[in-house]
């Protein structure tokens, strides 16, 4: 029997573990996580594998576990192990793995690297950008171009909040300046490299994610999903990894059409090819475009993930009717061309449940007990994936981030949302739980938002100026 080693510990890895554990290939699932995730633990137990607890970012640790398990292939869930060269280590040991080497993972780690790549290879959906080494330079540029800019850290900083300072009327410039200085200051402290601050032209429109599987030779797109980043009800409040996602029907979303899907796929695909040319290594894993439908380009890249998004994974993987565990093995071993993806036409809704305090105060959100009536939830037809929650003795303890994700797949969004919300009522805790009721209920607003930008980018396209934009200021000149 084939053995697979899964690295990671969140709800995304729970969904991956489930796909591997239920494969017809009968994989024995081994896991390396930083705590005992009850969902992954269940799969590991059922398949007769073993659960290793340790540092998922440590090359030595991973090497030790690989030696002990001697897996047939590996799957790496989160981005941090990729940045730390964990995929490189698998390959050094001769083990095929889902996940790019650290050089390929630069596409996620460094936004400057990503933007430069897109411009160098003239990839559609690229935004104008500038980067700065000091706060002063960045601030000067921002004040020069009072128009719309988005300020971002140049490097991935472990999910720390990124403040996009929206463009507001000129008379608010004073307030804006103060807010930027503070956010720039807090970002700069988190970034180690020389390039600290990335400034991009700001765009608006509905967001969506496209995941593409690749073994460096062939490409397989997965159905679209949409993540929801604000922590609190109605899409208000601080940035999180994502409080919920929707996917479907079919490969699309109700507000993204087939042509836009095709273009998005092209963009991600040629980016994967460009990475390969740039780092002279195959990109083997998942490349996911965090995209936005904008008036400048239509499908536009906001950032790239070198792995599955979480909670997008929980919305997409359960909709795949073919043997997804097997597909992961084909990907790792370079036989993706043999894989076929069959998708449940019906849409899915996933919502995350997080303890009060998330995402601003990790201590406040940690070490709370959480109870769920798992048999009842499953009986109602919802799936549960465990995230930042540890099995300690017989109780579940929160670890400070999104604890549980609930998924429902139904004939329409209305029914799926209702089911998820009902299942949520079967979860309780000794603290207040964050849960967004609005996710999955704003489809009409998304459709309207998409239609508005569609008028503009179609007009640009008709006039042959798709993707062309500029800013000018008397002192700074043309940008």
């Amino acid at each position, binding site marked *: 029997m084939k053995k697979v080693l899964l690295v990671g510990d969140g709800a995304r890895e729970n969904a991956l573990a489930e796909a591997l554990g239920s494969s017809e290939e009968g994989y024995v699932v081994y896991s390396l996580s930083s705590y005992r995730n009850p969902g992954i633990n269940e799969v590991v137990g059922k398949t007769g594998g073993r659960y290793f607890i340790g540092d998922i970012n440590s090359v030595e640790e991973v090497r030790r576990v690989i030696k002990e398990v001697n897996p047939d292939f590996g799957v790496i869930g989160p981005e941090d192990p990729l940045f730390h060269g964990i995929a490189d280590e698998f390959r050094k040991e001769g083990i095929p793995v889902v996940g790019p080497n650290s050089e390929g993972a630069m596409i996620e780690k460094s936004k400057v690297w990503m933007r430069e790549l897109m411009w160098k290879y003239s990839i559609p959906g690229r935004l104008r950008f500038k980067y700065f080494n000091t706060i002063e330079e960045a601030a000067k540029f921002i004040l020069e171009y009072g128009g719309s800019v988005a300020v971002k850290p140049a490097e991935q900083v472990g999910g720390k909040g990124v403040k996009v300072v929206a*463009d507001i009327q000129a008379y608010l410039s004073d307030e804006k300046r103060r807010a930027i200085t503070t956010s720039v200051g807090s970002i700069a402290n988190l970034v180690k490299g020389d390039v600290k601050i990335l400034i991009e032209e700001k765009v608006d429109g509905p967001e969506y994610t496209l995941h593409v599987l690749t073994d460096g030779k062939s490409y397989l797109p997965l159905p679209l999903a949409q993540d929801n980043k604000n922590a*609190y009800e*109605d899409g208000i*409040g601080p940035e999180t990894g994502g409080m919920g996602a929707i996917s479907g029907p079919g490969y699309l979303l109700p507000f993204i059409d087939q042509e836009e899907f095709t273009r998005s796929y092209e963009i991600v695909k040629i980016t994967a090819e460009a990475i390969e040319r740039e780092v002279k290594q195959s990109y083997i894993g998942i490349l996911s475009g965090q995209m936005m439908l904008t008036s400048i380009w239509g499908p536009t890249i906001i950032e790239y993930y070198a792995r599955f998004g979480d909670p997008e994974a929980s919305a997409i993987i359960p909709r795949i009717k073919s043997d997804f565990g097997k597909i992961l093995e084909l990907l790792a071993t370079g036989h993706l061309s043999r894989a076929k993806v069959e998708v449940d036409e019906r849409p899915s809704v996933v919502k995350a449940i997080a303890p009060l305090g998330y995402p601003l105060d990790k201590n406040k959100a940690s070490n709370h007990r959480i109870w769920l009536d798992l048999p009842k939830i499953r009986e109602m037809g919802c799936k549960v994936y465990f995230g930042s929650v540890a099995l300690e003795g017989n109780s579940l303890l929160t670890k400070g981030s999104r604890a549980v994700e609930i998924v429902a797949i139904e004939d329409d969004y209305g029914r799926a949302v209702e089911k998820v919300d009902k299942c949520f009522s079967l979860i309780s805790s000794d603290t207040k739980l964050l849960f967004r009721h609005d996710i999955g209920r704003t489809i009409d607003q998304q459709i309207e938002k998409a239609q508005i930008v569609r008028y503009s980018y179609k007009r640009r396209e008709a006039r042959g100026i798709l993707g062309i934009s500029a800013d000018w200021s008397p002192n700074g000149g043309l940008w």
Partner: protein
Amino acid sequence: MTGILGVYAFDKVWNVSKFLYYGLIGLQHRGYSYSGISTLGDRGFSKASASLPPEDLPLPDMKGWSGIAYTGYDKVYPYVTEEGALVIDGVIKADIGEFSRELYRDPERAIGEAEGVFSLIFLSKDGVMVGYRDELGIKPLEIGGFGFDLAILSSEASGIAVVGGELKREIEPGEMVYIDTYSISYKRLKDSRPHKYCSIDILYQSRIDSHVFNLDIYDIRVKVGEQLYEEKKVDGDVVIGVPDTAIPYAIGYSRRSGIPFSLGFTRTGSTIRTMLASDDFIKVIGVQLKLNPIKSAVRGKRVILIDDSMVTGRTLKNTVFSLRSLGAKEVHVLIASPKIVARCPYGIPIPDERELIASNLPDKEILKIIDADSIYWLSLEGLFKAIGHNYLCTGCMTKSFPKRWW
């Protein structure tokens, strides 16, 4: 008439005072004879207020990561104590100091027990913001967001949009919203159906770019204009609306009738609202300040003049007079609301019955006073038809009030 606003930052690095200041200007069409702002910072509450519209309020040098604001006529607000700051749109049968203390102790109970018709925003010294929309839906309240940084409560979306925020939704009638650093939660405190949206807010008070009471205000007003034509077909050469509120009515009437729409007036100074102005001097002078007729648009023409409402009739008399003095051949007056015949017990400053022309005089007499060639008011059924339902408070038109709180 009142606009209320609350701005809440999830990170205390923000200073929201200018968001409040500019957001409040976005609400000043709701009433402006008095305005004020209160912010919460490290050293408790600060407050700035004056008997001036928000745009003339001396730009306060205030700091605070959260705050509330008021524009209207009641000098009590923002009501600030050590424990909290409060703004109310509407009327409440309670001692405001006692109510504020109760809100601090237990907002759910305080609102649950309070008698009246009100929407409110309360900010406690501990950094909790509570919003509530009256259970009949007479008063509006909406919620929006600004990036990952702010939550904004506002009577209308214009208070959110002006500072670059995004409207998320209307607070439901009877719903309380509770905002602190770590969460936003909602709770339905009272359920009173059918809802009774304020007709005057829809026809007159709300800004034409607003989406409130589940309605796009501009579209509704154009429809009311179309409905007016269905009810009263006047043979004329030009349709003119009294700026700014009545312009969409005139557009609707023109569209349906095929009679050209024209701008009959231009404005001097800012948008002084004559219906809101409190003393007679302003009422008389007000119309001249507000409207200067454009001669070439009306000379030798049979003018169909549309206004949003008629309270005392004095404004309209002046308007008709100036149209005639510039050479209008005929002036036919259409009023885009049913007759206003009663005082509003819920805080819209409509004068007493004895001051309302429509409750004192028959049409024939009014026509004589206004000196128009004909006059017509939108029917109540026409109002329901244009809006698409009758979940409306029409107390000032019918003397039938949805709630007796006094």
